[in-house]
């Protein structure tokens, strides 16, 4: 994985240089954007609801037992906004969208469609990579905002109905509002933006470097997902430690 980091960075740099062509590729960006949204919205909803619910379930009774019921909303709110929503959604999108990107571009590579583009003087980075990275960089932060809201709601439902907590909705959200600041949500959204760039660059790179037949495509898909997740977790620590303290 680490042997190809240089190539991924180079691909990302070339994609940045291609940004002036973004407007020309807007149709493809929108197509990819809606594909990501359509493919992921329901999953994001289910996943984030239950993540919020389980965080409330794990922390709530302990806090209530220690007369800290007013902290439940804040703990759930912070955990979801700053950590769980961006990381879990990025992992979900790496599996759902990163794999699709690597498979599609990998298959185009194997079946010479990318060579055909090059013979027509169409730059594969402009035509294939730029729209996908832009689309995922727009879609993932939006999905994370959605996931944060649904996750908070999931936490509030469990805090309200679980007999060990029974914290009313109004109290849960008032506590959450007291503790969670807008910049906490901003941190999560910024992280998800960085994760989106990682997923896009890693997956497109794996697709573009696919060799062999269907087995090669399968290998690229697996590597795209695994490498993206490993990098997401590493960058999650680095971003939290150095940028978003």
């Amino acid at each position, binding site marked *: 994985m680490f042997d190809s980091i240089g190539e991924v960075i180079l691909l990302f740099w070339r994609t940045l240089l291609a940004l002036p062509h973004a407007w020309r590729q807007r149709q493809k960006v929108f197509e990819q954007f809606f594909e990501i949204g359509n493919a992921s919205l329901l999953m994001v909803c289910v996943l984030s609801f239950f993540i919020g619910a389980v965080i409330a379930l794990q922390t709530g009774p302990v806090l209530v037992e220690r007369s800290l019921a007013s902290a439940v909303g804040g703990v759930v709110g912070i955990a979801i906004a700053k950590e769980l929503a961006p990381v879990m959604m990025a992992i979900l999108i790496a599996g759902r969208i990163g794999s699709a990107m690597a498979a599609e571009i990998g298959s185009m590579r194997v*079946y010479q*469609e990318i*060579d055909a*583009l*090059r*013979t*027509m003087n*169409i730059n594969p980075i402009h035509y294939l990579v730029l729209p996908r990275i832009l689309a995922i960089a727009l879609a993932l932060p939006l999905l994370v905002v959605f996931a944060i809201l649904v996750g908070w709601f999931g936490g509030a439902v469990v805090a309200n109905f679980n007999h060990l907590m029974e914290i009313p909705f109004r109290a849960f959200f008032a506590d959450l509002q007291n503790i969670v600041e807008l910049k906490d949500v901003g941190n999560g959204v910024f992280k998800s933006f960085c994760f989106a760039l990682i997923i896009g660059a890693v997956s497109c790179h794996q697709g573009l470097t696919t060799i062999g037949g269907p087995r090669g495509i399968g290998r690229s898909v697996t590597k795209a997902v695994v490498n993206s997740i490993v990098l997401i977790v590493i960058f999650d620590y680095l971003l939290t430690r150095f940028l978003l303290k």
Partner: protein
Amino acid sequence: MSQPHSHSNGGVGLVVRGLRKSFDGQEVLQGIDFTVQPGEIFVIMGPSGSGKSVLLKHLIGLEEPDAGEILINGEPITTPEIAAKYRMALVFQSGALLNSLTVGENVGLYLTEHRLKPAAEIEAIVAEKLDDVGLKDAMDKMPSELSGGMKKRAAIARALVIEPQLILYDEPTSELDPVSSVVIGNEILDLKRRIGVTSLVVSHDRDLAFGVADRIAVIAEGKILVVGTPDEVKNFNHPLVQGFLRAEFKREK
């Protein structure tokens, strides 16, 4: 390889000198030399694995040689302006149509992506080129709905949109039935007649080679064994060449 959509037609000349290429220590091209005249149909024949497709990739700029040079009208193919100056197209063995686009979108891709014409004009050009290759009704079909022969003809239509001065064909009749092979062969001849394009055909199809070629080169083990007219090649006394040209089944009577 091509850029602006001008209308200066007529084929270009091609010179290949001392072309060498190795992959993982194995020398696939061992010093290839030949010349193709403007407007000529030049066929490169040879058995599978002889280096034909690798040679073709060099000619369109998809591979870089370890040594040697390729000249288009006397200018090295590595010159940055070459893509702007001369229009070249490659018809891939598989067709290499983009599976996510319709046939019409595939054929018009070059014009659409380079924004060379308004949409209505592109549609008219695409319809005309598809008509030229007998695929008028396939414009809205997806590549997966086409037969092997139709895919190749669609790929030729996509190449024609570029208004090429040099068309390279990679095994244009592989996987095709004899009737479809003849249709493709006639298409290659017709293009030479109509627009005077230079055609370089890589194939191991003996019928196609001797049916369309002005000159033939036989390549084996990364070297060119003979270059000449079909008759000259047919009569060239070399065991590999004769073995390739006269290969047939031995059936007991």
